[in-house]
């Protein structure tokens, strides 16, 4: 399947650095080229503290135009907390660079499965004008949070009414949000993503028959420690 084209987030350029600088996800004044590898980003990073993630190394790879970074599990560990953005003395912004890298990885079909979990958000938004925790997330939260939360969720409508709010948080967007999502190409992308995820799943099943399971982790596959890692999204 051909890669997905995402012109604004990942404009096609000769180098990773160029793409990152031109992307609308990164600030116009990005100090990428001025990086002095001081490590203030990594030292400030919650993901780096608890995993092998390193924003400094990601920036280095981008500057070296090392495209293997797109296949690295590392880029999926960022919390998007923007601590590196706040601390960088050169006005670089690793957090927004990682956003671009993730989009590039998705376009090449590398990280699509990471999105499976959240693909309901688009349709729900089009219909209701609001977002919600995706279905797989609700299932995981139910098992994490137990009875108290489940019963509150069941009573949400009456609680909202008691507070003087409408029973459901639904917005009246006159179909405009639906129209915008169509026209910006969101639904096409969603379709592409779902197909890509299916393709990968099949590929994985086939590969599983000849390769031992242990070898699989890291390259591809669901790194999630979750019981519901997003299957609902691609059972179409």
């Amino acid at each position, binding site marked *: 399947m051909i890669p997905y084209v995402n012109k604004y987030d990942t404009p096609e350029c000769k180098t990773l650095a160029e793409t990152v600088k031109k992307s609308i996800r990164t600030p116009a004044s990005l100090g990428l080229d001025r990086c002095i590898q001081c*490590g*203030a980003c*990594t030292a400030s990073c919650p993901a*780096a503290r608890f995993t092998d993630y390193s924003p400094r190394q990601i920036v280095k790879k981008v500057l070296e135009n090392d495209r293997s970074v797109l296949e690295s599990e590392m880029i999926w560990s960022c919390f998007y907390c923007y601590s590196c953005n706040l601390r960088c003395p050169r006005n670089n912004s690793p957090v927004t660079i990682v956003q671009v890298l993730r989009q590039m990885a998705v376009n090449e079909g590398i990280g699509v499965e990471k999105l499976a979990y959240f693909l309901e958000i688009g349709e729900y938004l089009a219909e209701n004008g609001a977002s919600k925790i995706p279905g797989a997330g609700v299932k995981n939260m139910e098992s994490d949070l137990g009875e108290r939360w489940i019963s509150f969720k069941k009573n949400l409508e009456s609680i909202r009414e008691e507070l003087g709010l409408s029973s459901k948080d639904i917005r009246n967007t006159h179909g405009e949000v639906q129209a915008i999502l169509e026209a910006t190409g969101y639904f096409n992308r969603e379709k592409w993503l779902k197909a890509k995820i299916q393709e990968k799943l099949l590929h994985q099943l086939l590969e599983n028959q000849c390769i031992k399971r242990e070898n699989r982790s890291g390259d591809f596959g669901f790194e999630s420690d979750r019981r519901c890692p997003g299957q609902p999204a691609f059972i179409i």
Partner: protein
Amino acid sequence: MNAALDKTAVFICHCSGNISERIDINSLKKTLKAEGIPVFDYEYLCSREGQTLIKNKILEGKLDRIVIGSCTPSKHGTLFKKCIQEAGLNRAMLEIANLREHCAWVHPDKAGATEKALSLIRGKLNRLENHKPLEEIKVNIVPQALVIGGGIAGITAAVNLADNGISTYLVEKESSIGGNMAKIGKVFSPDKLAEECAMCSLSPLMNEVVANPRITLLTWTEVERLSGSAGNFTVRLRKKSRYVHDNCTGCGRCSRVCPVLVENEFNCGYIDKKAISLRFSQSVPKIYCIDPDYCLQFKGETCGKCVEACKSGAIDFSQKEEIIELNVGAVIVATGFEEYDVSQKPQYGYGFFKNVITQMELARMLGINGPSKGILVKPSDFSLDPDAVSSTSTCSTERSLENSSEKGSGTPKRIVMIQCVGSRDEKEGGNRYCSRYCCMAALKHSNLIMKKYPGTEITICYVDLRALGFYENYYRAVQDIGVRFVRGRPAEIVEKPDKSLLVRLEDTLNQKITELPADLVILSAAMVPSKGTRKIASILNISQDESGFIKERHSKLRPVDSSLDGIFVCGTAQSPKDVTDTISQAGLAAIRGSAFIADSPKALVNEIPTINQLLCDQCTECLKCPFEAFSLNDSGKVIVDPLVCTGCGYCTELCQKGAIQISGFTKSQLKAEVEGVVKEGDLLGFVNSGIASITCDNIGNSALTYPSNVKLVKVPTNLVVDKDLLLHAFKCGASAVLFIEDPPDSPKVEVIYPLTISHFEKLKKELGDSGDRLYFKKAYVPNTRGLAGTFTSLAREGEMI
């Protein structure tokens, strides 16, 4: 061709392509030659060969008026004037058309630029028709110098000036000279790999200041005002009252009996000083000083203990401050730096965590005249409780040290130093520059501590270690002694309940996130211009860079000249630097100052009012000059003092008879230039020749552009532009006229600016409907982009009309 111009020639400089690539010089030559005007061009007119060309052509053709098309006159104007003078012409007979900053560099369209270049040259040719030779006004330079700031830079400059035979005033706002160098305790020597006592180097110098008969030392004194001009400045000083007369012997009895403890700025805010005190024990002059904010006597209480104790009767609560006026030929600014306020980086916890201090605070701690008498302590274990200090004892510090050693935790064992705090930092509140001194200060303090407290674990967290030249030897020695270096910029500091600290950073060389435990963390704070530096820059009206340091004229060719003639700068007031570099630079500033003074008499700018005594009816309106430059002489005639006059042109507005004109900017000259320059639909800008003019030039330097139908004419200020001239400009085709004025940022412009505003408003009213075509803009030097934008939008508007 006009008869007055039959001996005029035009010279055009290529500026090595800067001009010739954007302007079609051949087409200019063709057009002008067709009108019978000789035109010569050369690759570099500013070169020796270029000047020879000009001189030869003047002599060959018996030329008497010259137009040069080149870079901005503020760059080579003086050089070219000198050049034509050497060929026997009066300097008034030269006009420079700015073909580079005002044309080639700002108009990418070659046809437009060439057309504009021609109009600029025509304007200058027109102007020359009306030129008369100007008499040179020469003044004698006052053979005295003023040095502002008594740190190592100011002391060095003063001593050097005096050694050159120049009588020098050294002004210091504190009660003693010595500055920051007196605070730092030790200076390092890269060849002996040792640390020397800073005071031992400084003290003899300070004493020389007092001993030298050519130096007048004025401490506890601040500069309030500077007027006059280069070579003849008048400086107003405020000498604050010490409440102690000069017959003080410095015995210290007064301080010992004084019951009031105050915060000691010299010791970084420790409360270890009395309300009557010396700044430090080797203070020069050694005269005590009372702080009236704390002295009980000034709070309405009766105390008088110091008066009783003083055997020479030096204390005098009624002593008054003095205003001193000095006349000097040159000024050297040596007002120094202060440490960056590290509390702007809360992630390092300064101000919250007691054991986080700055390098300067560490220097004070290691100084034997410091708060802990040179003993390394953890600030959390060290307190100077005012109640614990008996009024007669000076051993308070030792006592609290004893207390802390009883707890057995006094001396920090693990020290972490963090480099680049507030330096090389693009974030809000940070400074983009490298502060230059901090790497070496950290190495020096590490070495000192390792020698005195062997076994201490010191870690320096750096990003790039900058030990330039021979300093590398010292760096190696510090490595050898066992100091550890970690490459990484710490993210934050955490304080544990026992007041120990954790410095969180990535060791970027082994790529591990590390938490360095520390008993004491030292922040190497950036060097920023002192408040005094900022204040003096504004009082003297000299340029500063974006960080507030005083800007030199040219980083390579004029490294100690400020933006104003006769005012020089040295030391950390100019840029961050260490003691060694400061001393070298101060020596140069002294030489430049004495050379300036030696070059007496000096020719003054002749662009000042001339009074036509035939038209003058002695109405005395011109005596309203805000600078009081006008007076009546013994025979009742109005005269102007060229030294006081700022050339602003307000008098031309005041004089109803039209008897006053500014030389070089007479009504007929301005009219003539406008006629030559303006084409149908042009935006005409009258540019103040000060800051506004620099800003216009900077548009070109910043590679910004604006349309070529924007024409700029330089004026002393817009006060010389009257209604008649504006109507003339409109008649010549100007779609709009823009006044570009200096911002009211200096004492001089603070006076002139409101006058230009009301002048503008008055003209707008007088013009009636055409008043809508008159605009006003303040031009700040950094705002080149804004000014170019104004030019573009007004020019576009004009095109639409």
